[in-house]
């Protein structure tokens, strides 16, 4: 059931040409669990395991498939509460519950093997371990289905959050700086996308002109879009959009980075159902085709990535994606880049040249009409800033827009192609969806 370690599913090189399986894989379903701020540590119906099972069931129902038809399960086994939270997130020893919650699996951790067993998915032949995060795993799923590793595949991204655990304790409570941290933490950089991007962002403001608070219209638009996204945190918890004044008066985290530039960690799980384009024809929903997937992992030259590196990396990622999809900037209708910190989005927007935005143009673009009903419906999902740290809003919104099922969020411009990502400038992946297979 495990993936052969040599399985080369990644598309992470320059110059690979058009993806050989372009349009031959489709997303046929998706499902979202409720989005809670945190798990209370007690309720077994709101664990990350329970929410992942619920999301899977919703994705299968959406596609109109049954559990016996599932032959692939790709579940990211790194969650905020798990490995990606570092040693700070390790759960304290404590009594467990009755099966299937008689270990950490299902409570704060989920993996493919646990899901297959707990959900009774008897026909699964592909359930890899060591699955990367959502930005890359959607590419893994697309390639696995295209390569015949499986044909009806659940893709699950759990994102957990526990009281007092987020980046607290563990190595952040250590007095010593070990390994790669010896070059960063003595001066205060504890790691994360905020640190990766804030220095290049400051350089951006110097190079092109503008001020950090010029991102406010983007942040607020994300909040507005989030209120139109019924499966997200903001809409389900009534988080009204802030005003520009409230943004400018908000407290700093890494000055000039403000609290509202950061997403809200949540407890939730999302599932997608990937299948062949052929099988998708007989499923419940209109297929959304995969036109390309690409990944990247770039290495900085020194201690801190600078703006030149960030621009080079994002340019290369854009080139890989466009080349593999056989499309260009003018062909992309829906653009859902990652916004876990607001200051990343401008780098992606400009690299991909969406709606003609060039280097240095992002702040002026944000100041225009970027609403979902306007001519430039940027990040129509609301992203993480508008839905919580699901890290999946970009994908689900893209699917809904191409299906024509985005409801109050449905764009008024053409919606036949969509670009989505969970990625940072140095690492992650992109995926291009199409309403049509070619």
């Amino acid at each position: 059931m495990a993936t052969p370690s040599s399985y080369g599913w990644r598309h992470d090189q320059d110059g690979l040409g058009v993806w050989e399986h372009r349009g031959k894989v489709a997303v046929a379903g998706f499902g979202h669990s409720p989005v809670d701020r945190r798990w209370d540590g007690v309720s077994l119906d709101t664990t990350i395991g329970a929410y992942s099972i619920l999301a899977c069931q919703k994705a299968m129902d959406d596609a109109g498939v049954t559990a016996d038809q599932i032959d692939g399960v790709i579940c990211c086994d790194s969650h905020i509460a798990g490995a990606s939270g570092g040693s700070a997130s390790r759960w304290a020893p404590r009594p467990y519950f009755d099966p299937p919650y008689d270990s950490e699996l299902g409570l704060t951790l989920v993996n493919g093997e646990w899901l297959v067993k707990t959900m009774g998915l008897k026909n699964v032949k592909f359930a890899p371990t060591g699955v990367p995060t959502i930005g890359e795993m959607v590419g893994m799923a697309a390639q696995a289905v295209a390569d015949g590793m499986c044909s009806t595949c659940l893709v699950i991204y759990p994102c957990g959050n526990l009281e007092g655990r987020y980046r607290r304790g563990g190595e952040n409570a250590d007095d010593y700086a070990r390994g790669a941290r010896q070059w960063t933490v003595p001066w205060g950089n504890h790691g994360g996308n905020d640190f990766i991007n804030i220095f290049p962002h400051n350089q951006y403001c110097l190079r092109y002109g503008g001020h950090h608070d010029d991102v406010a219209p983007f942040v607020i638009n994300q909040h507005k879009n989030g209120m139109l996204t019924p499966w997200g945190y903001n809409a389900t918890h009534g988080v009204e959009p802030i005003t520009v004044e409230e943004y400018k008066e908000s407290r700093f985290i890494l000055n000039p980075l403000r609290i509202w530039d950061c997403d809200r960690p949540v407890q939730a799980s999302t599932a997608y159902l990937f299948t062949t384009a052929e099988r998708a024809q007989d499923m419940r929903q209109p297929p959304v085709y995969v036109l390309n997937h690409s990944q990247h992992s770039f290495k900085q030259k020194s201690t801190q990535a600078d703006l030149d590196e960030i621009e080079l990396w994002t340019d290369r990622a854009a080139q890989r994606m466009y080349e593999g999809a056989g499309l260009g900037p003018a062909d992309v209708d829906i653009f859902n880049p990652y916004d876990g910190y607001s200051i990343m989005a401008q780098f992606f927007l400009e690299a991909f040249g969406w709606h003609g935005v060039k280097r240095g143009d992002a702040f002026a673009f944000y100041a225009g009409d970027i609403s979902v009903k306007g001519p430039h419906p940027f990040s129509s999902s609301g992203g993480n800033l508008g839905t919580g740290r699901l890290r999946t809003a970009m994908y689900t919104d893209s699917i809904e827009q191409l299906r024509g099922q985005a409801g109050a969020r449905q764009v008024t411009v053409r919606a036949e192609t969509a670009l989505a990502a969970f990625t940072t400038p140095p690492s992650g992946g992109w995926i291009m969806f199409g309403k049509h297979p070619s």
Partner: protein
Amino acid sequence: MPKLIPVADDVSKPFWDAVNQRRLVLQHCAACGKLQYPPQQACQVCGSARDLGWKEVSGRGHIATSIVIEDGRLNRRMPDQPYNLAMVTLDEDPTVNFYSNLPGTPPYEAPVGAAVEVTFEEVAPGQLIHEWRVVGEG
């Protein structure tokens, strides 16, 4: 400031040994001429491991940009908040950069573009770290 204490490993030991002698030495590739920091097993430009040696540098640089940490996650540094965290480029090779808290410069007053020079700060008995002090105007 109770800064975290670096723990040297096999690759970084020559660097920290030099810092503890108040010298700034960086890896230097004899094959391609590139300076490299932080230290690595091989040259990240040409890939050579055997041509990597150590070279003392001037210890002069400039502030490329700076932030102020107001709400960080490091327990040991929380009492210091708010504090500067600058990105300093090395004059010999501006693609080499360092972090600095800019000792002597109050938070929010980091002069971007200003000249800096290396200094050394004790973070534990016998263990220094390299820091950067402003010596010119931004």
